[in-house]
């Protein structure tokens, strides 16, 4: 966990080094990938940081929340990584990456106009828009191409 503090604002290369040294599931700067390798080629630092947080959730063990939650499924992690690769973050803060009680992974952007996007354990993508802390729209999307309009809701950096 300590290395996480060290790389928060570091350039992408630092993430690559950390993973090569500490984890069998690591990020790659190459556009091609091997087993247990996630390509971060052409991604910005914020996307890489979010992907790093997703990969860290692989460490969660059975009953990690004390209420019987199972470890996250590989499919959920892979779809969450794919989602982040489709989220342009130039004007957005890095989202909080939160595992949900029933096996999903949720990305949360706070602020006056907040947004939660979750990859559920069934692979569905659900979202909630909030304004001044009040929920204003809860629904789901079927394609990553719908993310663009959703993200325009979020308060910029």
């Amino acid at each position, binding site marked *: 966990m300590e290395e996480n503090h060290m790389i928060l604002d570091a350039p992408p290369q630092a993430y690559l080094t950390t993973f090569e040294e500490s984890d069998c599931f690591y990020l790659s700067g190459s556009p091609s990938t091997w087993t247990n390798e996630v390509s971060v080629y052409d991604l910005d630092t914020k996307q890489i940081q979010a992907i790093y947080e997703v990969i860290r959730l692989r460490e969660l063990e059975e009953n990690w929340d*004390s*209420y019987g939650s199972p470890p996250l499924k590989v499919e959920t992690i892979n779809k969450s990584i794919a989602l982040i690769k489709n989220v342009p973050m130039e004007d957005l803060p890095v989202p909080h990456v939160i595992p949900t*009680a029933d096996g*999903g992974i949720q990305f949360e952007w706070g602020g006056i106009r907040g947004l939660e996007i979750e990859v559920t354990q069934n692979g569905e993508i659900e979202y909630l828009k909030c304004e001044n802390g009040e929920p204003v729209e809860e629904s789901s999307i079927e394609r990553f191409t719908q993310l663009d309009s959703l993200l325009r809701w979020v308060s910029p950096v």
Partner: protein
Amino acid sequence: MELVIIDDTEIPNQEILYRRIPPEQMKFEGGQWRVSTGAFTTRQASVNLASRISPEEILGSYPTHSLVSFTASNIRELGCLLAKETGDTDPSHFLVCREGDLNQRISKTIATNLIKKVSWVRFNPPQSTT
């Protein structure tokens, strides 16, 4: 799993409910630690009655977890109810379920509104700040 609905004569509205929060479901936002809705968006969310168990007993095996409280009234006002799994021998343990369909997931909207009502009973800041 069979569930029995518990009405407000058995558990009054003012009853305080506890739920553990693991560090992974906390976020630092707006200058303070907050609970993520991810801690509640599940089909049946376990809670313990404050009148039947102490915070120390609940957190005994989970020293890195925090504990929040809210009331039975809070969840009922949001369209949820308390239920008990048949065969559950823990007198303090109940489940927060959606009214109308006990197997329906607690929505993000409900969770967002519930989080506004929660209070920290025991707060253990996560070791990793992201």
